[in-house]
């Protein structure tokens, strides 16, 4: 049982790290600010989500697990709104110049 949950954790966290890597590759490769923003938000939030998913079986209590999910949800919210805000700032500047 613990072997299965360990394997699950390793698989999920590994997949999460892959998305972090993908996000960084996107940052390095994409030509303009808006597409870099896209790479950042999509990949990072999926990456953190998978890491949290992998950590869930390792948490000691239900409260700790709920906190992990809450952290992920807050980062989702922050990532989405920050991307909107920064994206608008980019567009505003683009149209002014």
């Amino acid at each position, binding site marked *: 049982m613990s072997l299965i949950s*360990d394997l699950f*954790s*390793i698989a999920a*966290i*590994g997949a*999460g*790290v892959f998305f*972090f*890597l993908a*996000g*960084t590759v996107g*940052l*390095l490769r994409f030509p303009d*600010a808006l597409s*870099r*923003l896209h790479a*950042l*938000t999509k990949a*990072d*939030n999926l*990456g*953190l989500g998978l*890491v*949290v998913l992998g*950590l869930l079986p*390792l*948490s000691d209590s239900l409260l*700790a697990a709920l*906190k*992990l999910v*809450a*952290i*992920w949800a*807050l*980062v989702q*919210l*922050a*990532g989405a*709104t*920050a*991307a909107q*805000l*920064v*994206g*608008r*700032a*980019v567009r*505003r*500047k683009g149209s002014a110049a």
Partner: protein
Amino acid sequence: MTDFLLATAGVILFTVAVGLVRILSGPGDADRMMAAQLIGTGGIGALLLIAAATGARGVDDVALGLALLAAFASAAFVNSAAPAEGPDAADGQ
């Protein structure tokens, strides 16, 4: 398992570091704000992994605090970056 968690934390920090090199240098300020966002997400991920590996107490609250404040830098940036908009800004000049 512990070593795996720590190693993944290290890999995440490394990818974040590579990303930082790219976007801290710009070209625009919006790119730089993305750096703050990137380190926010990556930092929280690494923090949770390190906490799970070392068993330090109360670290989930630190991550919770960081997650709450993750969008604040971008909000402050947007809030101060466009001061010349809106009808009221004109009479301040």
